[in-house]
């Protein structure tokens, strides 16, 4: 089944590149939803079907809950938030879309170089998973830094989280059902709280630009010296 997993991971990389290049919020949220689907079914695809037969109940349950939460519920929540605060797309990002795509592409190349140099062969389900995970985490962090809108930063966090999950599936990490569900619950509540925060911010600042969130800090102490 490795070939199917490799196709899936290659598509995953493409969603990263597309995300870096899009300025429209709805499109970006849909791309993150697609990533959620991929992340959800990845453990089932990576399962060693020929040697171990059909996966146990735990794998199916985690895959189903993951797909539903990351692929349906969270994007729906974000779309609702976008409508509610009447958010427009990313009109003037800090880093232009072309340059963003180039940077994300550089991340991909770097991840493959690093992934090769790690010489990981033990207990890896699919060799492609590690570089894809690194590239996705990098893309997520980059999106958080390079975009102004609060909603896009939440999307960046979700992409970062997806990267970690891909890494976990790639090295066949088995925590048990409780922990998997706990992690998922945390991500869900986080997006929920961030959504409420976005609503409050848009009401108080009448904008979603995080540039306005720079009143606190101690930089002024340094300037007086």
């Amino acid at each position, binding site marked *: 089944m490795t070939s199917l997993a490799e196709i899936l991971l290659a598509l995953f990389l493409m969603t990263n590149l597309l995300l870096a290049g899009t300025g429209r919020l709805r499109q970006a949220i849909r791309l993150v939803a697609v990533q959620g689907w991929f992340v959800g079914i990845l453990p089932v695809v990576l399962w060693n079907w020929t040697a171990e037969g059909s996966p146990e109940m735990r794998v199916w349950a985690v895959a189903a809950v993951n797909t539903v939460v990351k692929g349906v519920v969270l994007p729906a929540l974000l779309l609702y938030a976008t409508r509610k605060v009447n958010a427009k797309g990313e009109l003037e990002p800090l880093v232009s879309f072309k340059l963003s795509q180039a940077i994300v592409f550089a991340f991909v190349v770097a991840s493959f170089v690093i992934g090769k140099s790690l010489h990981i062969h*033990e207990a890896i389900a699919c060799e492609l998973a590690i570089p894809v995970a690194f590239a996705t985490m990098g893309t997520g*962090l980059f999106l958080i830094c390079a975009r102004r809108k609060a909603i896009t930063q939440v999307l960046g*966090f979700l992409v970062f989280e997806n990267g*970690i999950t891909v890494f976990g599936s790639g090295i066949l990490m088995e925590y048990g059902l409780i922990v998997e569900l706990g*992690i998922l619950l945390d991500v869900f509540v*986080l997006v929920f*709280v961030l959504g409420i925060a976005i609503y409050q911010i848009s009401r108080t600042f009448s904008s979603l630009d995080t540039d306005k969130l720079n009143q*606190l800090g*101690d930089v002024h*102490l340094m300037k007086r010296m």
Partner: protein
Amino acid sequence: MIDSLQILLIVLTSVLFVADLVQSVFYIREADRCEGGEHMPRWLYFTCFCGFFGAMLFALLAPSLPLMWVAVELTTLVSAPLIAYHRSPGALEAMWKYLLICSIGIGLALFGTMLVMHAMTTGNPTWYKAGFVFVLAGYGTKTGLAPFHTWLPDAHSEAPAPVSALLSGALLNCSFFAIARFRTIMPDEVTGFCDTAMIALGLLSLAVAAVFMVRQTDYKRLLAYSSIEHMGLIVVLFTLLQMYGGSEIVFEDGKGVVFENITGDILFSALLGHIVFHSLTKTLLFQTAGNLLLAFGTRAIAAVQGLGVSMKLHAVLWIAGIVFICGMPPSVLFLTELGLVVSAPIWMSAIVLFLLFCVFAAMTKIALAMTMGKPAAVPRPLPARLCCVPTLILLLLILCGIFFCVGHFFH
């Protein structure tokens, strides 16, 4: 050792929770009256407050490393709404930064947890090293270690005083406990690397705190930087204990820990003493600072003068808290810092002493400026019940201090 740390932190967190819950009841009512403006419903505040305590206990008691991650992330989620109790622009900004920075940090810690767990199955030291770096950066963000501390002064200064006290006194210790737990499971071949990284972050936190405290203009931020300083000291103490403490001998009845050599014993009691007395003193200080904020309506140091004339009890509480937190001789923190300085290598002692001196100078200068002189503004009269909890904590600090010193004298 990790077991005694765990029990101590559970007791400490519970005591601080009760103290801050009682203070919340008084404080919130008064804050609503004088600040007005929009705030979140009180039932939600108290729900989150209790949930915060529950999440911290879960983090301390978690049976496995990934479950501990779930719990620590949960503490972020339930404490974030508390920071934005008053929906002012500053509070919303602090909440947004807290959520985003801590969640990314904790995300890195999850990655680190995966690497360490993978290393445990394969036994590869490179994976242990990589995992520990991510764990240290991740949980270090939550502990407030420089350079990952940027959320901390904002959140601590904008949150209502009892929340700041609980964040500083209890939450930072819980995430430090997570680092400590990972450090103790590291195999021998990577401990040198881990210790270097921890000492570097600890000293850097001390330095950053000292730099930002010297010219501080906001008394709640001053306390927040002091928390960064003390978390740095705790990390250094813990690492020195791991480096020089030797192996530990657990009594047969399991009721205590001794170390092979005397340095281990000194550092161990210094570590526990530092954690307890920093948390209690910081709670006292944050609650007093909250009362000053209610009375003067501003966090600016320049606006608060002549406390000794206008608010005598608060002046006593404030000066006593500052004396204790700076580690001046009657304070137990003096003994613990002395323990650190005598056990550390000479270069490290010199750096720590110099930075502690800077912090001491900054804090006492500001505290004296606030208490001495003529009152610049007339403070709002505050109900006496707001002073109950800080006064009780001060008495508790003095009592515990006497017990700690007497106990060590006989030891």
